[in-house]
């Protein structure tokens, strides 16, 4: 199961990076298990285009220039997994992404993830928040999930200067708990 999941992730990453060379390189490194591109989608799996929209949406909600897309890709993985397991969640996400794309096409002439101008994407999200006919629960689902899964990645912490768990290192007693001198 684990291998399958990893395959799925890696293949998706390859696609998301938009580079056939990346996929080939991963396949070459990891052997034949990965040389099955493109894989058949699992039932309920979101399409690469839908995932890409979620990644851009998560970045627009929590935009940190210091974080590259890989952190946002990891942040939306719990949504992808839930969509596979739970048809209701999948429906919320697919409808929501559809709404984003439809609105973006009307407002900016392209599907949401392909709108380059951040201000125009923000206008779409603002509309999502204000429009009574927008799909219910989509914003909340993505917001409440990715606000946890983005900032809970230990790899993200050093990007913000957070040093995290300290017990194994003997606490901060000898690691700067009182080193402030600028006052």
């Amino acid at each position, binding site marked *: 199961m684990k291998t399958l999941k990893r395959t799925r992730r890696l293949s998706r990453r390859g696609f998301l990076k938009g580079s056939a060379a990346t996929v080939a390189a991963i396949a070459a490194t990891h052997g034949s298990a990965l040389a099955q591109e493109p894989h058949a989608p699992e039932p309920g799996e979101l399409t690469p285009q839908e995932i890409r929209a979620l990644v851009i949406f998560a970045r*627009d*909600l*929590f*935009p*940190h220039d*210091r974080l590259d897309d890989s952190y946002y890709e990891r942040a939306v993985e719990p949504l992808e997994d839930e969509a596979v397991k739970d048809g209701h969640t999948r429906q919320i996400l697919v409808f929501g992404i559809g709404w984003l794309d439809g609105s973006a096409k009307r407002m900016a002439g392209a599907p949401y993830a392909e709108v380059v101008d951040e201000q125009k994407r*923000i206008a779409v*999200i603002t509309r999502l928040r204000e429009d009574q006919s927008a799909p219910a629960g989509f914003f909340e689902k993505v*917001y409440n999930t990715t*606000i*946890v899964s*983005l*900032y*809970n990645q230990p790899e*993200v*912490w050093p990007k*913000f*200067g*957070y*040093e*995290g*768990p*300290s*017990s*194994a290192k*003997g*606490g*901060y*007693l000898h*690691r*700067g*708990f*009182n*080193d*402030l001198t*600028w*006052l």
Partner: protein
Amino acid sequence: MPAKFDLNDSSLVVIIGSGAGGGTLANELAQKGISAVVLEAGKRIEITDFRNDEDGMFALFTWLDPRTASGSWYVGQTSPDLPAWICKLVGGTTVHWGACALRFQEHEFKTRTRYGGIDGANLLDWPVDLREMEPYYDRAELKMGVTGRHGIPRLPVSNHGKVLFAGAKKMGYTQFMTTNMAINSVPRDGRASCQQTGFCVQGCTFGAKWSTLYTEIPRAEATGKTEVRPESQVLHIEHDKSGKVTGVVYADKTGAMQRQKARLVCVAGNAIETPRLLLNSSSSMFPQGLANSSGQVGRNYMKHMTSTVFAIFDKPVHMYRGTAQSGIVMDEARLDTKRGFVGGYQMELLPQGLPSFAQNIVPGAWGRDRASIIDNYVNIAGVWLIGEDLARETNRVTLHPNRKDQYGLPIPNVHVDDHPNDLAMQEHALARADALYKSIGAKRTVHHLPFPSTHNMGTCRMSENPRDGVVNRWGQTHDIKNLFVSDGSQFTSSGGENPTLTIVALAIRQAECIADQMSKSVI
């Protein structure tokens, strides 16, 4: 050796809950030779299970059984399914608490007399005063190893504390210091000293912070007089025809129902579960619930006025390094009605790790403005404003009219409408904290209104007159002699101080009363 008692042993004290109230009471009784069974709803874990992991520990120890919130309070809007952040495990909320161990002030025991009648509030004097409590505060502080008391050195000042104190000095405040903390500043009582880990609230991995989990409870067990039964949730308290309680029915870890007989029952389930249990124990003799002839069970719920100010500087603070809450400014804790409100508030350090900070700051907001706060994480300092809130009859824990828990019992609803006094104090406190940080160069401050309540009080309050409250000066219910309340539910007023020290002092005092009344066969 932990004791092992029979379900039919009717000579026992049954204690419901193992936190600051229940855990302390069990040990105090055990040291006097009194046998008790402690029924704890949560699991038993040990220090080695603690992790420096905010979300992981939250999921491991938080009381997540369904609850609802209503009313105009902020928590009712932002956290309607989790009105309080308290714990469900052996040791209760003492595993999670920040360990600020402050005494109540004299006037806070006498709010009806000192504040007068206030519209929309249900103030009442405690039947005890500070003088009577002082010896028990002493004993609680010695038990817990409170710093700055009894010759125990204070903890050192962290970066985060330096920032708070520099601002306090600029503001002309004089009462700022590392707080009286129930965290060892030096090795003491078989426990290590603080290593400035910064994860106090996730469970102290060094055991430097006092928690009943690894102090009172193992000591009680070592006497051979105490049995702790984890994963045992009490559903009903039973009574006989004379109205005396006879035992409790609880669900054990397999979900099977058990009936434990008792000579007396002490309820220490924190101020939401305690009144819920009394209300869920209604009978034909007590149709309003046990010990509720006053109608006050569940009423007068208090959770403190709280708010947080985070300040962004242009230089590093690293608020997460070091003892989380060890820094306080006490100048605003006085009673001074010229400020436009009664009661006072403390200013206490409140750091958060990056995950908690990023998840909680400006709830519901999105986009670049919110992200810019998080981008400044290392340069941020935080202070928690915690002050007295006023008892109101309509702020109350009730049984939900139709939602049931996993045992088929009504879940609790917590209803709060802030009193205008609470809001006036909040406004004052936020403005003072803003000014404090701006006085030393903060570029921006961000307000965080209350988090789910960690301090929960008042729902079975003490009163001199049985008409006005649920328990007497010993925590013994007015209506039923052999039924006691042993947690913060007893509080007649909330004070402006963190409640744990007072809960422990009351438990020490209650144990004396129980031993005395048992020896005289009054109970």
